[in-house]
């Protein structure tokens, strides 16, 4: 086997495949070394509806920003001043926890980012974002599940499987690798006997339903295990409202903090399609951003010391128009932000090759031009958290994406 190695950071899998001893101990990624006791976790939050990156992290230092984004532009002055991240960018004031994490070096932003998709259909855009395929199509599996499936079978992360939060499984984590499902309990539950009997029937007659029900029962048991007072979590709202977002993160954190809990999770938050009266520092988008901020905070709190091993990434199918539309909102666009948080994130940075906002600098004269590929960010996280190689990432996880290099250095 030929092995071209430019850095001492190959995947554990690859090392195992070389037969072990030769390079192995020196090249083992951090998580595999017993000494530092690392136990990496990755949480992916999909923001469906296309997040306005320019109202989330505003380029307040860009002279063209205020003019284009009009009444909803973020500003460093006024009653709802945006929270400065550096001399050029400021985050929406609805996100104080994110700003705090950023200052503490545990949150980062990649700006002017987009997937490879350049049309403006939500649904195709979401398919591309979640499937990890180069274009839209009949995608049935997601990149996060394929990443999980690409880990060695005995590996702890692979063994514990993934977690899907919400009543249905987001495409990003659908696929062959096992995935638990969990949502705040809404209904009184039957005893275990009925579940066991139905499971037995499915095992004989309908393996697909058997697999799904088994995982649903497992996750429900885990989430219940430490609720000593027997009070089930009542749903506080859907995944398109702030309370629902916060609650789903709270529950997911509880499951993921457990020693035998899943290490990889996917959540999907809805409602980001802000065509009308989007609001800036306050209003509709700010309410949703407050929910997302709450989710970051719940993960930080709920994961406890495991937060130190965790990366959370929030991604969206594309951005919105740089210029506000006729109804004080924004229409479908291109470049937007990727938000990163977690103890392992090398934070305190807005990573951007800023394209500028002059008419000629905008993509098709209307959208923030993308200068970073969302897949590069995701590949970087997968490479440095789980040791997946660029080859696996470029072939299995994000097919036909060898040209998109993993963005390294995102992880401490």
């Amino acid at each position, binding site marked *: *086997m*030929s092995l*071209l190695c430019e*850095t001492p*950071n190959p*995947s554990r899998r*690859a090392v195992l495949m070389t037969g072990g001893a030769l390079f192995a101990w020196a090249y083992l990624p951090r998580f595999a070394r017993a000494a530092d006791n690392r136990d990496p976790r990755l949480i992916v939050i999909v923001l*469906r*509806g296309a997040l306005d990156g320019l109202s989330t992290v505003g380029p307040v230092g860009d002279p063209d920003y205020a003019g284009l984004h009009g009444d909803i532009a973020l500003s460093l002055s006024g009653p709802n001043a945006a929270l400065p991240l550096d001399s*050029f960018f400021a985050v929406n004031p609805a996100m104080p926890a994110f700003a705090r994490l950023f200052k503490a070096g545990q949150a980062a932003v*990649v700006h002017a980012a987009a997937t490879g998709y350049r049309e*403006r259909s939500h*649904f195709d855009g979401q398919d591309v974002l979640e499937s990890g395929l180069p274009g839209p199509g009949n995608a*049935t599996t997601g990149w996060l599940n394929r990443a999980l499936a690409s880990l060695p079978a005995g590996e702890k992360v692979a063994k514990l499987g993934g977690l*899907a939060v919400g*009543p*249905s*499984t987001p495409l990003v984590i659908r696929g062959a690798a096992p995935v638990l*499902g969990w*949502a705040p309990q*809404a*209904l009184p*539950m039957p005893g275990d*006997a*009925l579940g066991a*009997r*139905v499971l*037995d*029937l499915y095992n*004989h*007659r*309908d*393996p*697909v*339903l058997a*697999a*799904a*029900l088994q995982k*649903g029962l497992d996750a429900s048991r885990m989430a219940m295990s430490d609720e000593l007072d027997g009070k089930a979590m009542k*749903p506080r709202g*859907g995944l398109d409202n702030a309370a629902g977002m916060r609650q789903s993160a709270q529950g997911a954190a509880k499951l993921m903090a457990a020693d035998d809990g899943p290490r990889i999770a996917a959540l999907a938050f*809805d409602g980001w*399609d802000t*065509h009308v009266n989007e609001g800036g520092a306050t209003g509709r988008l700010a309410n949703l951003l407050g929910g997302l901020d709450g989710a970051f905070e719940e993960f930080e709190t709920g994961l406890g010391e495991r937060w130190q091993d965790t990366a959370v990434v929030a991604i969206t199918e594309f951005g919105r128009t740089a210029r506000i539309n*006729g*109804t004080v*909102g924004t*229409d479908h666009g291109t470049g937007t932000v990727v938000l990163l948080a977690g103890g392992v994130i090398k934070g305190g*940075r*807005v*990573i951007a*090759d800023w394209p500028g906002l002059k008419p000629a600098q905008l993509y098709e004269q209307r959208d923030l031009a993308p200068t*970073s590929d969302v897949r590069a960010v995701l590949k970087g996280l997968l490479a440095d958290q789980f040791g997946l*190689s*660029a*080859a*696996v990432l470029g*072939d299995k996880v994000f097919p036909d994406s060898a040209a998109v*290099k993993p963005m390294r*250095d995102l992880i401490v």
Partner: protein
Amino acid sequence: MPAPTPDRELVIFQNWSADAICVGPATEAALALPVSNAAPPDPALVALNRFGLGARPGDELGKIASDARGCLKAELKQQDLALISADDSKNAGLLDSTAAIQASMAAAAERKAARQEKAALAMQPATDAPDSSADAKNKPVVPPVEADIYRDEAQARFDKAINAAPGFVERLVGFWSNHFCVSAAKGRIVRACAGAFEREAIRPFVLGRFADMLLAVEHHPAMLFYLDNQQSIGPDSRAGKRRGRGINENLAREILELHTLGVGSGYAQADVTSFAGMLTGWTMAGREGRLGEPGSFVFNANAHQPGEAALLGKTYPPGGMGQAEAALNDIARQPATAQHIASKLACHFIADEPPPRSVAHLAEVFTKTDGDLHALALALIDMPEAWSMPLTKLRAPFDYVVAVRRAIGPSAGNEPQRTLRWLRALGEPLWQPPGPNGFPDRTDNWASAEGLKTRLDIAWQAAKQADDIGNPDDMLSTLIGASASAETREAIAHAESRQQGLALLLMAPEFQRR
């Protein structure tokens, strides 16, 4: 300035053996077809489950099986079966959309007045009028009229579905309502008129002409509100010049992408922008009634982008409201629209991956009959695949919940709040899809871990609500019939209690799959 993106390729491995990194079958669904569905299905279950909303106590499966196609066609012959009319005494109290929106507007004004009163009271020194301030606190909040209307409409829809026999027409209503969906989560106005929208813009046309449904939908205030067209203003119109506001392209894009042609069918951003201009002025009359009856559709010529406009290579002369209507009539007849509708129908009624010949046939019928939805419904019934292909699709939550209600008897626990709660827990809240593409229609979306677990909870609750269960074995004969698997029969026969037996029946693969 921020640091540039590092793009060094750091690690390259070559010569990976392909089988070592193989992730196996693409999906769980691909692992195995349900064993129970390997044989051609019982025609009674095709009629009741693939096309209908499930069996009810009293249905005779043997009789249905003897003329299953005829049973479905008989339903199509019943005049106006799809309508929910407020003239019918059991629907008395349902409001048309204009009245519903007016009620919402009036409630909004009341709420505003109450807020202002409270704010004014808060301004007064507390010692001045302690009693009146306590009164204001204890005063009941203005009742949420939109939620009441929504609940009444939901109940009418549930009743219609629970009592339909076999329910093919209601399934078509559900299909089209999801195709042309609006969401009550948009705000109070849409919550108030989502039910009326379905009764006014969907139901009258489910066995009519596609173009007529399209026109009715895009004229309806619920849709104009949901997809933000009510505020879209032509920049060169009188209102646009005066107020400095402009176009919102949301409705135009979703009409092309979701309602008619389908994504990737060849239209460009320029088509979207131009079509959005044609649709400017399509709006709803406001509370003051300056443009017309408050809450009703109006064409506001003052907001309409003047001049000719191009769409898909054709130029439409200036024509006020007629300009976009002409465009809608054209795109309703585009081959891409026929193809889009045909594949969605086949996916809904036949299989997640329908045979291409089914899609081609439906598209041909659509084109030949100028989008006659009655002809399409007949074509579905007459399609040999519908009767030969196994029942592999998982019932979507609404269909499942209705089938459960039908199974346990229409009177048992049939309160709208309970059924609405079930639908929310299953991830398909009524008239509240996550986006304008509606709820997903594929099995892998609903066969989730959390979804199955929730179905188990619902089956258990339903079994406890059913007041007169009788013998679960008899219910098995009524609801599933002769084609029930030996395992399902045995599981029910060995149940610990009647309730558990019924819950098992409601969870059986034969009850879940359609």
